[in-house]
């Protein structure tokens, strides 16, 4: 999926948010992409900043059905690590 590589690139600015430790995604069949941003702990302010970035990505890829989440968990075995 060529779009997936573009999405991975678009997710890179998440690195610049203090408290973000990683990002991984899972592509489902078709147009469904689950994005997980890894934080050791999460608070309201951090969650808001992450979701502002998510909103930007969603605007750039209207053809994709995203599920955006935050997590403290490591990537699943089927995940693609973004960073």
């Amino acid at each position, binding site marked *: 999926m060529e779009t997936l590589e573009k999405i991975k690139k678009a997710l890179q600015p998440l690195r610049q948010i203090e408290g973000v430790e990683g990002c991984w995604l899972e592509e489902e069949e078709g147009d469904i992409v689950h994005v997980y941003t890894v934080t050791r702990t999460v608070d309201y302010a951090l969650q808001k900043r992450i979701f502002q970035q998510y909103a930007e990505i969603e605007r750039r890829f209207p053809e994709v059905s995203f599920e955006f*989440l935050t997590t403290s968990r490591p990537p699943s075995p089927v995940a693609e690590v973004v960073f």
Partner: protein
Amino acid sequence: MTVQEHLQQAHHNENLVHVLGSQPLEAYDWAITVLFSCILHFVDAYLLQYHNITPGGHAATWKKRQRIPGRNDYVKLHLPPIYDAYKILYDASRLARYEGAYLTPARVGDYQNLRDNEFASARQFFQQLGW
């Protein structure tokens, strides 16, 4: 569930939030979960009443080569004014339920921010419908 049952559940949850999110319980993880659940039932009532839709789950899925939209898709499509708030409440409630976030009394600020911003804005939308 019928529209009326969804609305009844939403109001029940809204009343419960105040108990969970104050002393003596100060159960902010559950208060956040119930904030989301309250909005979810308003969403389901809205989708059923105005679009005759009953979502099968949160996220879209594929079954037998057919794409089944999830509630998140329907909120984006039919309830854009609350979409941003809904996504954050969804994520926060998931973190509260499955990852131990918002567990201690020290998380009162996070709970209050979610209640006074995301929950309040979504709730206001449904209040305009008389709900």
